[in-house]
C-alpha cells in the first residue's frame, strides 16, 4: 500500500515538472468532460422529463390524413368512436400554429373547453377561464415576447385577415414552461373563427380509454372504422420521446465526434510520440531498480491524477451548468430559430449509464494513451541508458 502511495507521490512530482502544460491539459480535459456531460445530462433529463410529464397525454389522438397529409377531421366521427367499448370521453381539439410576423415567433394556439381548464391550476392571475370570447391564457414565453401582463391585450390576425384582440386572463407559471411556454389558449369558438375552421370539423380528436390495456385495441378499432385516420396512442408518444432526445443524433453527434476525435488525436499523438526524453527516463528508472510494473504504475498514476480530477471537475461543472443554471451555453445553441424558448428547469436525473459513457469517451482513452506507449519502453532492457 505504501509502495503505491510512494509511486503516486513520484507521479505527482513528475506532473509538477511540466506544471503549465499539465494545467492546460487539465483545463482542456475538464472542458471536454464539461461539454460532453452537459449534452448528456441535458438530453437525458429532457427525455426523462418528457416521459414523466407525457404520462398525462391523451390515451389516443386521432388525426385524419388525406393523401398522407394531416387534414381536418369531421366531428361526426366522435359519435362512432364513442360506441367502441372501453372508451370514455371523446373530444374534438382545435389547435394550430400562429406565426407573429412582428415578433417573428411561432405560437401554438389551442382551443380550450371548460372541462379541461378546470384542471389547470398552475396559473398566474385569475385561474378561472370561462368559455367567454375574447379572453386568453398564455404561456410565459408568449407573455415575455409581448411584454404583456395579466389584463393586457394581444392581437392576432385571423385567417380572414382581420385583427382580433384577446385579453390575457392568466399566464402560466414558469414552472410549467416546458409544457406551456408558447401556448395561447383561447376558447374553441375563438379558434374556429380565427382559423376559419369549417363547422363540423376539428383539428383532431382525443379519445379517453379507461383501461390502459385496451388502448391498443381501441386504436386498432378506430383505424378499422376510419381507415383514413392515424390514431396516435400515448404509448407511441412516449416511445417517440424515449428515442427522440438522443445524444447520438445530428449536430450534437457531430460536435461530440469532433470533440472526441480531437481528443483521440491528442491521445494518439501522445501515445506514438513517446519522446526520446521520456524513453530515457523510463530507462533510468529501470536501471536504478524500478520494475516494469512500477513504471506502468507510475504512468497509471500520472494518467489517473489528470483524468480523474478533470473528470470530476468537468462532470460537476456540467451538472451545475445544466441543473443549476439551466444550461445557458447549450440552450443558446439549441434554441435556433425558436424565438420563444423555455427556461429549462429540469429535474436532475442522472444515470449510471451516462457516467459510464463519459468515462469510456474520456478517461479510458486518456489512460490508455498514457499507459500503453510506456509499456514497450518499460519492457526493453535498461542498458541503453548506459550510452548517450
Amino acid at each position, binding site marked *: 500500500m505504501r509502495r503505491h502511495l510512494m509511486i503516486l507521490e513520484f507521479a*505527482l512530482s513528475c506532473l509538477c515538472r511540466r506544471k503549465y502544460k499539465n494545467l492546460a491539459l487539465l483545463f482542456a480535459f475538464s472542458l471536454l468532460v464539461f461539454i460532453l456531460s452537459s449534452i448528456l445530462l441535458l*438530453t437525458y433529463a429532457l427525455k426523462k422529463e418528457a416521459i414523466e410529464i407525457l404520462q398525462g397525454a391523451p390515451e389516443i*389522438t386521432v388525426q385524419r390524413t388525406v393523401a398522407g397529409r394531416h387534414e381536418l377531421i369531421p366531428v361526426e366521427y366522435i359519435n362512432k368512436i364513442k360506441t367502441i367499448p372501453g372508451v370514455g370521453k371523446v373530444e374534438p381539439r382545435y389547435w394550430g400554429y400562429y406565426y407573429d410576423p412582428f415578433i417573428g415567433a411561432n405560437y401554438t394556439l389551442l382551443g380550450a373547453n371548460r372541462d379541461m381548464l378546470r384542471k389547470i391550476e398552475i396559473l398566474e392571475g385569475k385561474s378561472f377561464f370561462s368559455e367567454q370570447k375574447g379572453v386568453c391564457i398564455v404561456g410565459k414565453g408568449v407573455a415575455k415576447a409581448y411584454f404583456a401582463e395579466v389584463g393586457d391585450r394581444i392581437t392576432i390576425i385571423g385567417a380572414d385577415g382581420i385583427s382580433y384582440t384577446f385579453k390575457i386572463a392568466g399566464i402560466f407559471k414558469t414552472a410549467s414552461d416546458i409544457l406551456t411556454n408558447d401556448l395561447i389558449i383561447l376558447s374553441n369558438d375563438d379558434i374556429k373563427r380565427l382559423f376559419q375552421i369549417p363547422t363540423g370539423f376539428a383539428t383532431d380528436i382525443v379519445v379517453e380509454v379507461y383501461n390502459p390495456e385496451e388502448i391498443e385495441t381501441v386504436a386498432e378499432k378506430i383505424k378499422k372504422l376510419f381507415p383514413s385516420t392515424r390514431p396516435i396512442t400515448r404509448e407511441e408518444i412516449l416511445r417517440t420521446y424515449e428515442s*427522440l432526445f438522443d445524444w447520438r443524433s445530428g449536430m450534437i453527434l457531430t460536435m461530440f465526434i469532433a470533440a472526441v476525435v480531437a481528443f483521440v488525436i491528442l491521445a494518439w499523438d501522445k501515445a506514438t510520440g513517446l519522446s526520446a526524453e521520456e524513453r530515457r527516463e523510463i530507462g533510468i528508472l529501470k536501471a536504478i531498480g524500478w520494475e516494469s510494473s512500477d513504471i506502468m504504475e507510475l504512468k497509471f498514476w500520472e494518467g489517473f491524477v489528470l483524468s480523474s480530477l478533470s473528470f470530476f471537475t468537468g462532470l*460537476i461543472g456540467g451538472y451545475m451548468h445544466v*441543473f443549476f443554471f439551466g444550461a445557458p451555453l447549450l440552450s443558446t445553441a439549441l434554441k435556433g430559430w425558436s424565438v420563444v424558448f423555455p427556461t429549462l428547469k429540469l429535474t436532475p436525473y442522472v444515470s449510471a449509464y451516462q457516467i459510464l459513457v463519459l468515462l469510456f469517451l474520456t478517461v479510458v482513452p486518456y489512460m490508455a494513451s498514457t499507459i500503453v506507449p510506456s509499456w514497450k519502453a518499460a519492457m526493453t532492457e535498461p542498458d541503453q541508458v548506459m550510452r548517450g
Partner: protein
Amino acid sequence: MKYKVFIGIFIVELLLLIGILLFSYISINTRIDEMKYLRQLCQGLTATDLAIWTEARYTRHPSQTDIFSAFQDCPSCLEHFPAGSVLSPPPHFRRPLEAVK
C-alpha cells in the same frame, strides 16, 4: 507529501460528486408533486408534446408529425437544425415500411 494533497482534492471532488447525486435523489423526490401537477396540466391541456422547439410542426409536435413533414427520413435529420441536433426522427419514420402500417 504531494500525495496527501492529491488524495485530499480527490476526496473533496468525490464528495462533491456524491453530494450532487444526493441532490439529484432529493430533487427527484421533492419534485414528485410538481411532476404530478405537470402531468395533470398535460392532461388538462390534452398536450401531446413539450413546448421546447417552436420552429415548426415537426419540432413543436414531434409525436404528431406526418410523413410529409420536411425531410423526416433523413438519417441525421440535420434539416431540423438546431432542434434536430438533439432530436432524432421519430421511430415511426426510422423504418419507412413500418410507418406505412
